[in-house]
């Protein structure tokens, strides 16, 4: 176990001690115990930067299930490192923030921090695992820890709902990813990502290639809340705000992005991949930004904004994947999209993280997040306002913040998408820049709503629960740090160029010759002739126009029928599934044992009959049969007549007597077929049985009061005849297929010699197969005990459950 492994699971280990720490140091806010860990980890991972910066990677392996090819292989390369830094860095800030956000008196901090640590460890595991199965394990752990975090305030109905929803959707994606992993394994014979990437060229033609691709994308899309799986994310906002800031801006939702980036070298050669990733991404971008505008809840706006931003990153990754086709690095014509994706990933984490924290502050100080109640907070909370303004402007893509830079690069990427000469991009590719532009307008719009509706306008203290004032310093430090990053990166983007280069090296390894590196240069100014500039300008103008006239056109949101919304689809789908399942189950599980027996017998007749016919198994061989004596016929007739007469008998006594008659006749059969032991036993047993029948059934009502309807009777009759016929047919064929001599010849020979007896049946019973007899009497013993207990033990009411 290397230090790297230890670093990955250290949050999980710490999680074990949290409840103890909480218990014994309850005066100190539990968060303080946590804070050092992500900070330390951040610096620990930073120490890997010099190595990964030049396209190298560090791999440490710890065997878990080597027999199945599953090793806990931890691998740090540029991509993994970037994510690890985001997780630990933002993690540290979020923990700090949460210390001030969550009251140590009211909240169950032990649980909260355990979940948070679980989540942190899981995320580190996802981004640093080289083994797909291990990755999947951590992937599911993120789903469950986020389930617990979302359901943290579980006395709220909405929390429970959101938790369930996010879990269902992300676990669905996870399972589908598992399917993809297994398919990949079948193609390559390994679970190791680096080995699979090495084999990327060999598997493209494989029949599993496309299914695996789709499976993986389902996993990535559900996790990253891509259309139409985005619906869980808004409901996940029920979690405490630090959680939202952490999970839904910086980390968990990015896991899908990570997966797509990670697997780009494997799958991006396929046109389907490019279309799906880019197409779904751009669709999500549009839909997210469009939907964000209609929301009144600040966190709701941010949720949809997150969705849309994720779509944006996704679409860039998709378009950038094309580069694998052309394979020329030098001009960076398509790789710019990848650059933009990575760059925006970082930017998004910074500004969205800070925005969530700001919203948290507003919520914390005013008691509401509804923009209809808020307004005019600028003067009361100046620092918060400044932070919010910078964050939103960056998100809207305004200079000089980092969001502007990545937005420009995004436009570049989208414009180049239409130049692609492959996979029908020449015709439909034009849609990409158009949709991107429209979506950007809406992005601008909701950004403005977010900041101005909250901080400017009329102050309405009567609608607020608390009297707002500026947040405590501890709560401000984390967003301040993030916002300063926004500004610094915006002004000096070249400080992270190396980082981006290393990440690109990890995403597009095949494009690099040995020892080469990507060269990224991010600049503010592309010149007046660049279309990106005009697009940005257009966004701003259109956005301002729309913002001004918001009340006039926002009616279109109400036009959209609620019935067709995806949320409604999910809700009714779930409800209908349960209801349908219940109806369906109730349909056949009706509690009537007769029905169940009819199913069982019908199936028996059907399947045995089919097998008989299909396998041509029926055979009748009369050479081996014994001849018939007339009294045997008489006995057979007695049995047949008696048993059929029982069917029509109306009195219980008659049925019992007839059953006895059958039994006694059977014992006569035993006499005829030379089985004296059997005859003796059957005789006695039959007598005792009949006596028991009479004893027990004296108290029962008479038969024949409410017998079955005619239809039932006919059905029963058919089933019965079927059963009888099948049993007879198989008996005939089985008898005609005697292929071997029975082993009983051995008994005839050895009963006297070796077992010292003359009655073979008895010797078999007590000696050869005495084991059977031992347990046969055990059965009898149990039955007797049961009968005794059944009659004597009558439990009092209310103690029925054990």
């Amino acid at each position, binding site marked *: 176990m290397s230090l790297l492994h230890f670093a990955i699971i250290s949050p999980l280990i710490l999680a074990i001690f949290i409840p103890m720490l909480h218990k014994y140091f309850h005066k100190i806010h539990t968060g303080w115990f946590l804070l050092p860990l992500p900070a330390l980890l951040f610096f620990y991972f930073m120490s890997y930067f010099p190595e990964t910066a030049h396209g190298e990677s560090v791999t440490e392996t710890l065997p878990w299930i080597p027999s199945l090819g599953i090793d806990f292989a931890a691998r740090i390369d540029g991509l993994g490192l970037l994510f690890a830094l985001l997780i630990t860095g933002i993690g540290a800030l979020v923990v700090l923030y949460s210390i001030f956000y969550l009251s140590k008196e009211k909240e169950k901090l032990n649980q909260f921090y355990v979940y948070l640590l679980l989540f942190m460890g899981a995320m580190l595991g996802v981004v640093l695992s080289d083994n797909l199965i291990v990755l999947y394990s951590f992937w599911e752990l993120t789903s469950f820890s986020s389930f617990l975090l979302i359901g943290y305030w579980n006395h709220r109905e909405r929390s429970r709902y959101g938790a369930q929803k996010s879990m269902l959707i992300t676990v669905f994606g996870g399972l589908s990813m598992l399917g993809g992993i297994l398919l990949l394994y079948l193609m390559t014979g390994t679970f190791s990502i680096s080995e699979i990437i090495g084999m990327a060229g060999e598997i493209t033609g494989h029949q599993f290639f496309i299914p695996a691709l789709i499976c993986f994308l389902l996993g990535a899309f559900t996790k990253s809340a891509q259309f139409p799986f985005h619906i869980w994310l808004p409901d996940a906002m029920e979690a405490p705000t630090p959680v939202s800031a952490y999970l839904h801006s910086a980390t968990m939702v990015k896991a899908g992005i990570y997966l797509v980036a990670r697997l780009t070298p494997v799958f991006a050669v396929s046109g389907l991949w490019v279309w799906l990733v880019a197409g779904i991404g751009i669709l999500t971008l549009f839909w997210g930004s469009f939907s964000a505008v209609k929301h009144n809840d600040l966190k709701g706006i941010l949720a949809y904004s997150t969705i849309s931003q994720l779509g944006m990153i996704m679409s860039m990754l998709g378009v950038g994947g094309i580069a694998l086709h052309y394979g020329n690095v030098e001009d960076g014509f398509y790789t710019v999209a990848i650059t933009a994706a990575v760059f925006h990933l970082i930017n998004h984490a910074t500004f969205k993280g800070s925005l969530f924290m700001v919203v948290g502050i507003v919520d914390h100080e005013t008691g509401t997040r509804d923009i209809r109640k808020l307004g005019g907070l600028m003067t009361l909370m100046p620092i918060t306002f400044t932070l919010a303004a910078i964050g939103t402007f960056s998100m809207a893509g305004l200079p000089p913040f980092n969001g502007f830079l990545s937005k420009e690069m995004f436009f570049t990427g989208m414009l180049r998408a239409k130049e692609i000469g492959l996979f029908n991009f020449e015709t439909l590719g034009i849609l990409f820049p158009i949709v991107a532009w429209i979506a950007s307008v809406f992005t601008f719009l909701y950004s403005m709503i977010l900041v101005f509706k909250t901080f400017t306008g009329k102050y309405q203290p009567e609608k607020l629960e608390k009297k707002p004032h500026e947040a405590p310093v501890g709560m401000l430090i984390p967003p301040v740090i993030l916002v300063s990053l926004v500004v610094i990166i915006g002004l000096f983007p070249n400080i992270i160029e190396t980082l981006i280069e290393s990440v690109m090296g990890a995403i597009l390894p095949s494009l690099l010759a040995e020892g080469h590196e990507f060269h990224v240069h991010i600049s503010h100014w592309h010149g007046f002739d660049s279309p990106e500039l005009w697009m940005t300008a257009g966004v701003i103008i259109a956005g301002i126009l729309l913002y001004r006239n918001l009340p006039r056109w926002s009616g279109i949101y109400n036009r959209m029928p609620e019935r067709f919304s995806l949320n409604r689809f999910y809700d009714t789908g779930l409800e209908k599934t349960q209801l349908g399942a219940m109806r369906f189950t109730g349909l056949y599980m009706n509690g009537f044992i007769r029905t169940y027996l009819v199913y069982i017998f019908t199936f028996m007749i059907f399947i045995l009959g089919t097998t008989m016919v299909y396998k041509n198994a029926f055979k009748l061989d009369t050479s081996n049969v014994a001849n018939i004596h007339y009294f045997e016929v008489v006995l057979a007739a007695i049995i047949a007549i008696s048993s059929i007469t029982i069917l029509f008998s109306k009195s219980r006594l008659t049925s019992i007597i007839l059953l006895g008659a059958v039994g006694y006749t059977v014992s006569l059969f035993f006499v005829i077929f030379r089985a*004296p*032991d059997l*005859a*003796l*036993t059957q005789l*006695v*047993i039959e007598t*005792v049985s009949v006596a*028991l029948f009479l*004893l*027990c059934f004296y108290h029962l009502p008479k038969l024949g009061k409410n017998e079955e309807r005619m239809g039932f009777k006919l059905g029963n009759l058919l089933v019965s005849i079927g059963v009888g016929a099948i049993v007879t047919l198989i008996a005939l064929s089985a008898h005609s297929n005697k292929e071997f001599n029975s082993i009983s010849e051995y008994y005839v020979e050895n009963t006297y010699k070796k*077992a*010292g*007896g*003359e*009655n073979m049946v*008895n*010797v078999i*019973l*007590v*000696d050869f197969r*005495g*084991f059977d*007899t*031992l347990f046969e*009497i*055990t059965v*009898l*013993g149990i*039955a*007797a*005990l049961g*009968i*005794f207990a059944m*009659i*004597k033990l009558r439990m009092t009411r209310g103690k029925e459950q054990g």
Partner: protein
Amino acid sequence: MKTNDLILQTVSKVILFLIVLFSLYMFFAGHYHPGGGFVGGLMTSGAIVLMLLAYDIKTVTTILPVDYKKMIAVGLLFAAGTAAGGLLFGVPFLTHAFTYVDLPLLGKTSLHTAVLFDTGVYLVVIGVTMTIIQTIGESE
């Protein structure tokens, strides 16, 4: 209406003896002739049932103060013990041993551990039958 069962009771005493004798014969003959512990046990319990019919449960329990449930256990213990005995001698479970001896009057007879096993069966069967019958009888 109370009736005396004098005739029945008198005959029962004789018959009882006859049935028990017969059942013991059945039991011991099992290895050579039809019969064995099972039928023997059933016949013995038949005798006890006859007693129950002729007298009453209380009288019979005073004559035969047996807890039939324990009798089942004893019988099972007998059978299982005989079976497990072999393990002590390093032979498989349930291995039987027998030898032939010449007894006066009866001639060459085998002494067989299977008889011990069968005794277990015999006891269990009596126990089971009587438990069932007595329990039902008492619940009437």
